[in-house]
């Protein structure tokens, strides 16, 4: 199968959906012809679809989302880009109190088909205001979906599902994933929400990971298999809301051991919810404590040795797995 990058996969999804449905349009800072998006995901789209449908905005995160909400409830399908995930904080009211709640508050009168694409994550030394993973905030907001694609295939398929759906979606991308390549079919496909993908099968330990951490988990699994003969199953939920609890629990039933890996700060993060869910619903299958691998509770520092210290790496995953087997 042909290989394309995560960035190209996202762009293809946008292009195909824009061709398919005139209601789909994009808005965000510098996404248009002069820049093509800070991470170049939207490059070339303004040239094809025009400046009206690939709309450069002022630096007004709150209004970007607010405007998208207004467009969504009146028949459009906006895909908004927030240039860095950290900046969703500026639009938190529009995301959590408006986009996510309007339908419910209005007793089902409104549909809010809105996708918010934004890159999370560290690893490129741009410090505390441009490096966070904040998916957990959004998991805590009913009415939102949270997508976390880790591969080009998932990125394209999930983005198409997000755009076609009728609910607001925080579509979490990761800066380090944009250049990675993976197989993506030429033919039309979508990836459903709420269906985890077993990225590697294994017997001894379940490792649940998302976004860039999927790749670190896979490399850790490789090392553990080769060097220690430990067989790791890597489960990628692909969407955090809805969460495929069954897939996680089934894997835990098989392995009896759970390590949850996420790039966000540990406390009240993604790993908390997954660990708690298993402790509540499947504790009897566990043969060892649940391990969480996440960032320590610090902002993300700038300097490379400091940043490397806080972002979970393969070694941290390997250590955690060894502690539970």
């Amino acid at each position: 199968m042909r290989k394309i990058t995560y960035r190209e996969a996202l762009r293809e999804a946008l292009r195909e959906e824009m061709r398919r449905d005139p209601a789909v349009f994009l808005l965000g800072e510098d996404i248009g012809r002069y820049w093509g998006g800070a991470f170049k995901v939207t490059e070339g789209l303004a040239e094809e679809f025009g400046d009206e449908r690939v709309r450069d905005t002022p630096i007004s995160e709150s209004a970007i989302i607010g405007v998208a909400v207004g467009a969504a409830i009146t028949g459009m399908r906006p895909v908004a880009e927030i240039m860095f995930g950290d900046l969703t904080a500026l639009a938190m009211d529009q995301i959590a109190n408006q986009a996510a709640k309007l339908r419910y508050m209005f007793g089902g009168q409104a549909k809010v088909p809105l996708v918010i694409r934004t890159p999370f994550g560290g690893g490129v030394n741009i410090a505390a205001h441009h490096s966070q993973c904040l998916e957990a905030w959004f998991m805590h907001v009913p009415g939102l979906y949270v997508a976390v694609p880790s591969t080009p295939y998932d990125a394209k398929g999930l983005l198409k599902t997000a755009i076609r759906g009728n609910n607001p979606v925080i579509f979490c991308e990761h800066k380090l994933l944009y250049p990675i390549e993976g197989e993506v079919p030429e033919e039309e496909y979508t990836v459903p929400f709420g269906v985890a993908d077993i990225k590697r099968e294994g017997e001894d330990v379940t490792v649940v990971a998302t976004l860039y951490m999927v790749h670190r988990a896979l490399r850790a699994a490789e090392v553990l298999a080769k060097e220690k003969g430990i067989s790791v199953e890597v489960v990628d939920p692909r969407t955090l809301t809805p969460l495929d609890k069954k897939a996680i629990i089934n894997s835990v039933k098989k392995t009896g051991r759970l390590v949850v890996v996420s790039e966000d700060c540990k406390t009240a993060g993604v790993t908390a919810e997954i660990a708690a869910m298993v402790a509540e619903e499947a504790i009897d299958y566990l043969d060892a404590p649940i391990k969480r691998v996440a960032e320590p509770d610090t902002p993300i520092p700038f300097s490379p040795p400091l940043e490397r210290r806080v972002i979970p790496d393969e070694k941290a995953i390997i250590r955690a797995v060894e502690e539970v087997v």
Partner: protein
Amino acid sequence: MTLTAVPPREKLVEMYGTMVKIRLFEEKVFELYAQNLVPGTIHLYTGQEAVAVGVCSALRRDDYITSTHRGHGHCIAKGADVKRVMAEILGKRTGYCKGKGGSMHIADFSVGMLGATAVVGAGIPIAAGAGLSIKLRKTDQVVACFFGDGASNQGTFHEGINMAAIWSLPVIFVCENNLYAMGTRQSMVMRVESVAERASAYGIPGVVADGNDVLAVYDATLKAAERARKGEGPTLIECKTYRHRGHSRVDPAKYRPKEEVEAWLARDPIKRFREKLLELNVLTEVEIQQIDREVAAEIEEAVQYAMESPYPAPEEALEDVYA
């Protein structure tokens, strides 16, 4: 001010009826509240009727509005059924939002009422977004966005109006300046006399209208709507008005000087419009009393409907989270 157009007789009569309807509706809500029949809190529109009615009368049914915590009047003016508005306020299943929204979140999408948000200022970019949607869909609708003087200090005011301005979106920003945001006088939180002055920061017209004169509001809106439909972009209309009661529920509004309250009560928009209609020979005293009685009956009916409607079942709380 000179009016571009005095509306035809039926329109004037309808406007009067709607103003009375809002007034009586709110008085009823207040009564029910005092009897402990309204859950939560309420923000009455009493005194500001000329704004909602002036604006909405200048709009078409397929135009949109966005609303606020003080939204009963907007809803009714845009054509929502008082029965279902009242039912929503009482938390009944027959309410527009099935009891999920209540007073601060009423919506009636069927008449273009895109809902009330209780986060002050949050509706401003949403209204701009509806305007963008109109532009992209190439219809000739417009959006009227209601908000208060207090809301004009929110970041969303700045961002939302700016975006509407640069994209020439068909939006009418209607600031209902009732001089106070809760107990906070406008002069404590703004160094400008009128909110309309802020329009210049976005390169759009800013207009001050007498918010207690329904025809003035109607006229300003008509002009703004025309401009918007022609693709010339948004207008900010500031309607100077006053709420007759406290901010919410039991607020006695002691922070307002007595003379100020009296002066504004003397300028009651309904009283003024009534006088105007008599003066213009549009209606006679008898006809007016007739309308007042009809409206009162409609409100009674709405109360009865709402009171007799069932509450939602507890499990309905779990519905409508996702589409």
